[in-house]
């Protein structure tokens, strides 16, 4: 239990980090000894998460040093840190949702390889199962990680850290999603890690946990360290005081800008919900009311259901129950109805939910009240500007011009713009979700002052915050949320912070039910290969029926045609899986075929020329594909735009090379490569089979192939592993070009002539094959087998149409319907799972 005398295992020395406009860490030092649990506490915004990110390698400090096991280190990526035994379990675990649980676990530490150079999936799964066994739960490690509950994600990370023999483990709010039983498991694991001599940095809001586990405690406030003390020498009171920045006694008696006169309870009732229950189960049977001129603080831990409650009131989440404004019952199913009823909502995350960052201040400010500034049908910029200036003046927003992009403003001023948007709507009920998070002190005070001012004008205000002092100082009444229920109401003038904070802590008994509810979102259903299975059934059924019922139906012919489409489908898929898109595939097909044809026309013997010609075609395709990626990366352009341009350029090159005339009279030996009429050998099918096998091996069994999936699945999480588009796109686009080139060579061999329009429009068919085969257009999803089945299905349906006596002109109709069917099935399937 004692702090060891030996050297610290991790040392943070005078680390500074600033973000535009904010000093997140102003020179913090910290050390961690082997076998020690060091608790890090502080309010939201104190700099804890920045410190963790620097320690784990996700963020570089502006200045200061980091020592790990006595050596100074600079982690290039979190993977590098992890490889050295420095494991971080984040509160919100970043996952690759489309990859399996096992793969997610393995990617963070680097996929294990066999001697053959392929990924050792047995080991990946064995390790994953071993990890899961540590938790003592039955989790299928092959299911997609998106199905894991938050609790399981965290427990798996902890278990993985233990198995990996980690030297330092950083746990960020590890119990926030755990039930009592699960938390006890966690504490056992922490004890085990300690006994092994690992150092643990433990971040938590929960006092009881800290005082139960920690050997030493460090308090951060406003980016600075307040003190580090041993647990024996401090009590909970002192810790809270240090976090909040003033003695707990004065905190209770602090003069506040609470309503000068106590709000008379007979003030007209503005806002009332009763029996309010969330459609997603995050809160139930809430009864809450707020009077005119009253500020009601809503306090609770993260995940207590406060934000969900606010969104449901505003019509962004389905919910049941009564909402009354000024006594009138309101039906609110959409935000617009909430707005019309007089409800306004300032969301939690300013950047992703509050603002359109690229748009001017004016557009953001008037976005919800546009009707008021339009005359007749026409919007008036002048009137919008007037409204913006008026409200910006009232809120003292510091900005240069109403047409300045809002992203140029500081955090506090941005928040005022969001607030201003809702002031313009003249709300009767204003709900604010963490309105001062990430806002500097001055702007914070101003925002609070405006809230009080608004309340005086008769607005009912619900102030949601995780900062206890904010709620206590600025509200007339504090409602505490706990696990989706109201745990109590307090008068901030009488109840102390300790009582309010205690009410927010989860109760032992109900915790289990709550965590169970969180987990219920994780389905046990296994639908991993549903898509392939459905496709396989279709293909088999249709193929069988055609073989039996149609005279002269040749499976071999079908395969020959399907080969080409399978290759093209794989060309599209390899790019899409990595979150790219290439619409120049058709032109690349033509470019390769032309290159091959031109070499074949040279005056040498065919035996010599054919291999060279094929190589030339493949090279042309690969180069064209890689060029697409390079242009997109260098120019910072969306790949659609780039390939739209190269689609035209490559086609132009083709026509130029052909000189305007089709190229015929290729050596017959070349034609026999794809289909040999003498022996009946189908080279095309053989080549396609080989290609399918190779691409399958690459995509499913090599490290780089899996990295492409990771990049497509979650680019941000991939960045944390050091995977970037700059590294992977040239490979995926190059492969796409290579495959398109191969398709071009095959088509040339089968068709025996090259004309300028060859392959025009094939890019869309190639994407269609990929999509029918189950490749997700947003990346990270799809299999080689699926694409092959998609190509087969497409050809089969075409044959079936001919069998039914419908002309095969309707290929488009079939392709279109098949894509739509595939998309809608996928959508319904995902919706149903949810």
């Amino acid at each position, binding site marked *: 239990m004692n702090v060891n005398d030996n050297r610290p295992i991790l040392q943070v020395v005078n680390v500074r980090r600033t973000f535009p406009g904010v000093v997140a860490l102003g020179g913090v030092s910290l050390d961690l000894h082997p076998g020690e649990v060091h608790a890090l506490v502080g309010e939201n915004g104190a700099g804890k998460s920045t410190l963790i990110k620097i320690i784990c390698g996700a963020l570089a400090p502006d200045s200061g040093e980091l020592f790990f096991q006595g050596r100074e280190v600079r982690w290039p990526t979190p993977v590098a840190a992890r490889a050295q035994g420095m494991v971080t379990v984040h509160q919100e675990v970043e996952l690759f949702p489309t990859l399996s649980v096992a793969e997610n676990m393995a990617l963070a530490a680097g996929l294990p390889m066999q001697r053959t150079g392929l990924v050792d999936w047995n080991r990946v799964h064995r390790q994953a199962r071993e990890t899961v066994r540590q938790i003592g739960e039955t989790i299928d490690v092959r299911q997609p990680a998106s199905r894991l509950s938050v609790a399981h994600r965290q427990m798996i990370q902890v278990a993985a850290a233990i198995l990996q023999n980690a030297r330092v483990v950083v746990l960020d709010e590890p119990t926030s999603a755990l039930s009592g039983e699960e938390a006890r498991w966690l504490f056992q694991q922490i004890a085990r890690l300690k006994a092994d001599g690992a150092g643990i940095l433990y971040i938590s809001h929960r006092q009881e946990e800290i005082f139960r586990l920690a050997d030493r405690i460090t308090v951060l406030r406003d980016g600075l360290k307040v003190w580090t003390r041993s647990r024996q020498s401090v009590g909970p009171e002192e810790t809270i005081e240090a976090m909040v920045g003033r003695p707990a006694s004065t905190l209770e008696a602090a003069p506040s800008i609470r309503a000068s006169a106590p709000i008379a309870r007979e003030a007209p009732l503005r806002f009332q919900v009763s029996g309010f229950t969330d459609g997603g189960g995050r809160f139930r049977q809430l009864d809450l009311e707020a009077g005119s001129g009253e500020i009601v603080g809503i306090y609770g831990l993260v995940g207590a259901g406060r934000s969900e409650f606010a969104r449901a009131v505003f019509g962004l989440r389905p919910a049941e129950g009564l909402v009354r404004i000024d006594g009138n019952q309101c039906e609110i199913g959409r935000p617009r109805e909430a707005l019309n009823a007089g409800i306004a909502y300032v969301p939690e995350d300013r950047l992703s939910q509050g603002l359109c960052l690229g748009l001017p201040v004016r557009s953001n400010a008037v976005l919800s009240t546009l009707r008021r500034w339009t005359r007749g049908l026409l919007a008036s910029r002048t009137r919008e500007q007037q409204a913006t200036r008026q409200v910006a003046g009232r809120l003292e927003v510091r900005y240069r011009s109403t047409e300045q992009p809002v992203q140029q403003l500081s955090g506090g001023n941005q928040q005022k713009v969001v607030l201003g948007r809702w002031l313009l709507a003249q709300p009767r009920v204003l709900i604010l979700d963490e309105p001062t998070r990430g806002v500097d002190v001055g702007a914070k005070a101003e925002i609070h002052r405006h809230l009080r001012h608004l309340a005086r004008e008769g607005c009912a205000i619900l102030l949601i915050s995780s900062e206890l002092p904010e709620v206590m100082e600025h509200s007339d009444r504090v409602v505490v949320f706990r696990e989706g229920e109201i745990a109590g109401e307090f008068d901030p003038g009488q109840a102390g912070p300790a009582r309010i904070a205690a009410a927010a802590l989860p109760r032992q008994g109900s915790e289990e039910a709550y965590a169970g509810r969180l987990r219920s979102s994780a389905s046990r259903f296994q639908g991993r290969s549903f898509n392939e299975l459905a496709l396989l059934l279709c293909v088999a059924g249709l193929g069988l029926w055609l073989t039996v019922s149609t005279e002269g139906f040749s499976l071999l012919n079908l395969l020959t045609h399907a080969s080409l489409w399978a290759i093209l489908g794989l060309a599209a898929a390899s790019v899409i899986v990595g979150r790219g898109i290439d619409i120049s595939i058709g032109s690349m097909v033509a470019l390769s075929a032309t290159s091959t044809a031109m070499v074949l026309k040279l005056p040498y013997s065919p035996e010599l020329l054919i291999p060279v010609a094929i190589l030339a075609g493949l090279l042309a395709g690969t180069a064209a594909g890689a060029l697409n990626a390079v242009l997109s990366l260098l120019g910072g*352009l969306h790949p659609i735009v780039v390939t739209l341009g190269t689609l035209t350029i490559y086609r*132009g090159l083709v026509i*130029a090379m052909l000189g*305007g005339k089709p190229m015929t009279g290729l050596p017959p030996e070349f034609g026999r490569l794809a289909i040999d009429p003498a022996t009946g050998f189908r080279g095309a099918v053989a080549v396609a089979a080989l290609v399918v096998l190779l691409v399958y091996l690459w995509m499913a069994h090599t490290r780089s192939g899996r990295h492409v999936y990771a990049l497509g699945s979650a680019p941000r999480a991939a960045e944390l592993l050091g995977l970037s588009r700059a590294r992977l796109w040239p490979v995926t686009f190059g492969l796409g070009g290579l495959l398109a080139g191969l398709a071009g060579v095959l088509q040339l061999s089968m068709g025996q002539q090259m004309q300028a329009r060859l392959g025009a429009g094939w890019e869309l068919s190639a994407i269609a094959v990929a999509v029918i085969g189950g490749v997700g*257009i947003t990346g990270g999803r799809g299999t080689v087998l699926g694409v092959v089945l998609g190509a087969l299905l497409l050809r089969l349906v075409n044959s079936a149409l001919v069998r039914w006596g419908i002309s095969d002109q309707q290929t488009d109709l079939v392709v*279109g319907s098949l894509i739509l069917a595939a998309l809608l099935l996928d959508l319904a399937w995902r919706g149903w799972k949810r």
Partner: protein
Amino acid sequence: MSRPRQESTAAAPAPPGERSNRRLFGLLPWGLLALALMLVFSQVRRPELLVEVWVPWIEVGILAFVMTAIILTGGIDLSVGSMVALTGMVQAILWQDWGWPIEAAAGGALLAGALAGGLNGLLVVAGLSPLVATLATMALYRGLAITVAGGDRIVGFPQSFLDLGRLLGVPSQFWLAGLVFLGMVLLVHHTRFGRWCYAVGDNRQAARFAAVPVNKVDGVLYTINGLVAASVAILGAMRHDASIPDAHIGTELQVIACVVVGGTLITGGRGSVPRSLLGLAVISHLDVGLQFLSSRLSWLTAESRLIVIGILLILVAVWNQKSQKES
């Protein structure tokens, strides 16, 4: 979009380099346009031909004006060429096989366009990626266009209908282009709906949180696109005296190219309808000018024209990207 830029430069003195860059940015497309114009007019011997040469590009332009609004919201519609073909065939079938008067058949085509566009909108609202959804309907509508008449073109419309192909001596496409341009400028830049489009394109979630009816925006825009595609089809039938099932293959890419060259961001939130007019002008002038030139210069053939236009598209896109990062 030019006004805000002036205002912000006036309020905050930018470093001199940045300023000249910005001025250069404004000049680039215009410079290209001037060059292209010179190319065209230096080669024209029979100016009356010029108008006719331009009609296909005007059709692209009409579609580009609507596409601008869709791309502004972060969407895309690949099915636009197929919708033109399909609605053209619907009109012809209603007239020829169902015996409807040609005006009623045109109304039917408009309805079909609204339905086709509406289906696109519905799919996007349902949560499908616009790119894939309209890729599917692109094939679907094309297939329908070919199927309804067994793949044949339908010809022989009444003379009174064909006479509408030119109004006041100018192909009607020009009038439609003017109308659609004005309509879209008004809609996108001077109405509440237009303001919503920008918000949706910049940050779809924030727009939803600001009570913007995001689904309505999607639904309306894709439906308008279908309607306008049908109008293009009707005028096309007047001009060619034919409805052609495989017309306008690849038009969608030309349309998108006009929007992108104009400087509207493909990811949404930034751009304008007049910019697409500029994009159309640059591309079409270059294309037409190079066409005229090719009779003189032997190396300047159809292929080098394609290459020039492709390179131009990428260069202008890079230019737009860079200049927007600076501002």
